C-alpha cells in the first residue's frame, strides 16, 4: 500500500515540478518561533535568511525566491509546527521547508517532509538525531555533540584533569553531558562531580557551593541561553570560584552574542568550543558582520543568524546546480557533499548523514575594543558530528 502511494505522489510532484521550474517563483516556508520564550531564535534566523537575499540577490537558477514565515510559538509544541508545515505544503504549495528553531519542531515535521517529498533545511535545531528522521533533511547549523566533544579533548590536552559537569536537566543537557564525559574520560580526564540542575532554576547558590567544595580544575557547563546562564555566571564570579582558579568551559551557545552584554564582565575568561564567533577573522565574516550591522543596528550577529544565512545559501547553490528544479530527490542529491566558505569558515554537507561538517573553534571570551567577544585561538578542522559515528 505504501509503495503505491509514493509512486502517485512522485508522478504528481514530477509533473508539477517539471513544468513549474522554468517560470514560477521558488516558495520557501520558514517555520520559526517568532514569539514566546524563544522569540530571539526566530528573529536571528530570519535576519540571516533575509540578509543573504539582500546581499546576494533573490533569483537563482532562473527562479525568484519567495519567503513565507509561520510562527510556531512557543517553539516546543510539535503539534503547532506540524500543523503550520502541513499548511505550508498543502495551502501555500511551498517547494522547500526550512527554519526549525528547536528540536521538537524538527522532529514533528520530519515525517511530513518525507511523505510530501519536500526538502527540509534545518537552520538551528541541534539534537544529533534530527537528520536521521527523514532523508530529505539537510542541516546547516550544528549538532550538540559536534560542539561538546572538542572542548573535552581540548581540556584533556591542556592540563585539565578533574572536571565537574553541571548541565540543565533536559534532553539537550543530557546529550551534551554524555558526549563530554565520553570524550574527556577517553582522553584520560576524570569527572569529579555531576549535577543536573532543574531547567527553571532561579538560584544556583547551592550548586556553586558544591563545586567550590569539590575544588575541580574546571567546570563543564551546559545551560539554556537566557536568565539561568546570567545567574550562574554572576554567581560563579561573585562566590570567588573564578578567583580560586577554577576554569569555566562550555559549548559556545552559552556566551552567545545575544546575551554577552547581559553577562557582562562575569563572562571574561570563559573558554568555549563553537562553530561561529562574531570575532572570526575572515573576509567573508567581515562582509557578513558589516552587512548585518547595517541592516540590524540594534542586534548582534550570532550563530543562529549564520545558520539561517548558510541555509539560504545552500538552497541558492542547489537551485543554481539543478537549474531551478526543486524535486526533493534531485535537491538532496545536489546538496550532498556541497562545499563552500561560510562566514564561520569552510563548511561542507556530509554526503552520508546530510549533516554539516565544519571547523570547531576553541575561543576565550575577552574584551575587544570595549566590546565582549569570543576570540578564537585554536580549532579542529572539518569536524564531523560524533553523535552519529
Amino acid at each position, binding site marked *: 500500500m505504501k509503495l503505491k502511494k509514493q509512486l502517485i505522489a512522485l508522478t504528481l510532484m514530477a509533473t508539477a515540478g517539471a513544468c513549474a521550474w522554468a517560470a514560477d517563483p521558488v516558495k520557501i516556508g520558514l517555520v520559526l518561533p517568532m*514569539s514566546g520564550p524563544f522569540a*530571539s531564535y526566530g528573529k536571528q534566523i530570519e535576519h540571516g535568511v533575509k540578509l543573504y537575499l539582500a546581499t546576494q540577490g533573490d533569483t537563482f537558477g532562473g527562479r525568484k525566491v519567495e519567503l513565507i514565515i509561520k510562527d510556531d510559538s512557543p517553539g516546543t509544541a510539535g503539534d503547532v509546527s506540524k500543523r503550520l508545515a502541513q499548511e505550508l505544503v498543502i495551502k501555500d504549495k511551498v517547494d522547500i521547508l526550512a527554519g526549525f528553531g528547536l528540536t521538537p519542531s524538527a522532529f514533528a515535521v520530519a515525517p511530513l517532509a518525507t511523505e510530501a517529498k519536500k526538502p527540509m533545511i534545518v537552520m538551528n535545531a541541534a539534537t544529533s538525531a534530527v537528520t536521521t528522521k527523514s532523508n530529505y533533511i539537510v542541516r546547516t547549523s550544528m549538532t550538540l555533540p559536534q560542539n561538546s566533544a572538542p572542548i573535552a579533548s581540548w581540556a584533556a590536552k591542556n592540563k585539565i584533569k578533574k572536571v565537574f559537569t553541571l548541565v540543565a536537566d533536559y534532553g539537550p543537557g543530557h546529550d551534551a553531558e554524555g558526549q563530554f564525559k565520553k570524550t574527556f574520560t577517553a582522553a584520560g580526564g576524570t569527572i569529579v562531580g555531576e549535577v543536573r540542575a532543574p531547567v527553571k532554576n532561579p538560584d544556583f547558590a547551592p550548586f556553586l*557551593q558544591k563545586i567550590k567544595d569539590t575544588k575541580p580544575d574546571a567546570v563543564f557547563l551546559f545551560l539554556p541561553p537566557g*536568565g539561568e546562564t546570567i545567574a550562574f555566571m554572576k554567581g560563579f564570579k561573585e562566590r*570567588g570560584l573564578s578567583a580560586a582558579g577554577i576554569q569555566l568551559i562550555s559549548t559556545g551557545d552559552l556566551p552567545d552574542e545575544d546575551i554577552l552584554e547581559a553577562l557582562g564582565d562575569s563572562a571574561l575568561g570563559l573558554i568555549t568550543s563553537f562553530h561561529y564567533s562574531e570575532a572570526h577573522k575572515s573576509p567573508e565574516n567581515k562582509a557578513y558582520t558589516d552587512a548585518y550591522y547595517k541592516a540590524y543596528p540594534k542586534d548582534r550577529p550570532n550563530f543562529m543568524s549564520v545558520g539561517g544565512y548558510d541555509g539560504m545559501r545552500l538552497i541558492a547553490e542547489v537551485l543554481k546546480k539543478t537549474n531551478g528544479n526543486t524535486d526533493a530527490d534531485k535537491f538532496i542529491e545536489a546538496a550532498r557533499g556541497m562545499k563552500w566558505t561560510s562566514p564561520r569558515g569552510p563548511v561542507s554537507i556530509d554526503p552520508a548523514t546530510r549533516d554539516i561538517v565544519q571547523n570547531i573553534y576553541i575561543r576565550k571570551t575577552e574584551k575587544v575594543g570595549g566590546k565582549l567577544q569570543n576570540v578564537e585561538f585554536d580549532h579542529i578542522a572539518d569536524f564531523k558530528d560524533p553523535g552519529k559515528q
Partner: protein
Amino acid sequence: MTVVFDGVAYGLLLFLISVGLSVTLGLMNFVNLAHGAFAMLGGYVCVLLLDRFGVPFLAALPLVALASALVGVLLERTLYRRLYGASHLDQVLFSIGLVFVAMSTAHFFFGAQQQPLQLPEMLSGQFHLPGGLDVGVYRLFLIVIGLVLAFALQWMIAGTQFGAKLRASVDNPRAARGLGIDVDRVFVLTFALGSGLAGLGGALGVDMLGLDPGFALKYIVYFLIVVAVGGSGNIKGSLVASLILGVCDVAGKYYIPQVGAFVIYAVMVAMLIFRPQGLFGRTAAK
C-alpha cells in the same frame, strides 16, 4: 553552612516579591496573578534608570517602587476596582490577560533578550567572615532590606491607624463604610503598596533571577506558593513561609539535586491539603 545563608537570602528575595501579592490577596481578597507583571515593570524601570539615565542603583530603588505603585493605582482605578466582587475565577482570568499584555509590551519596547543590570561595585563580590564563611555582599544587602521591610509592614498593618482601617475594610466593607472609613481610598493605597513592593522586589531580583519578557509568567508559581503556604494577608506568615521555602529549595538542590523542583511543588500541594488556610493564615473567613 552557606547553604542556609543562601537559602535565607533567596527566601527573603521571594518574600520581597510575594509580600505584595499577599497584601492584595489577603487583605483585599483579590487573586492577582498579574503580580509578576508589576515585579517585571519594576525590573525594567530599574534597568532603564540605570542604563539610560545613569541613576545610581540605590537611588533608583525608591523611584522604581514609586513608579510601579503609580501604575498600580492607575490600573486599580480603571480596571481592578470593577472586579472586587467578582469570583476568584474571573480575577484569575483578568490577571492572566494583564500578564499577556505586559509580556508583549515589554517584548515590544525592550526586545526578547535578557536585560543587563550592572550592580554597583560596593554591592558585588564577596565578604569574608572570620569563620571562613564567605557571604555574598548583595545577598547580605537583600537580607537587610527584606527584614527591614517585613517589620515595617507588620508594624504598619498591626500598629497604625491605617492598618486598622485596612483590616476593617477587608473584613466587612459595608460595616467599615458605616464607621466612616473611606474604603475605596484604603483599597487604592493598599494596592499601590502591594504593587510598589512588587516593583521593588522585581528590581532587586533582576541580578539573581534575570529579566526578560517571560519573567511575569516564569516566576508566578513561586510567588503563589509563598502566599498559599504562608497564608494570605499574613505578613508574618509570608515571611516564615518564604524562608522555609527558600532554605528547602536551596538545600533540596544541594543535597538531592535530581529531586529539585519536585520539593517545592510537593510542599505546596501538601500544605494546601492539610492546612488550606496556610501556616499562619486566619481560617478562610469568606
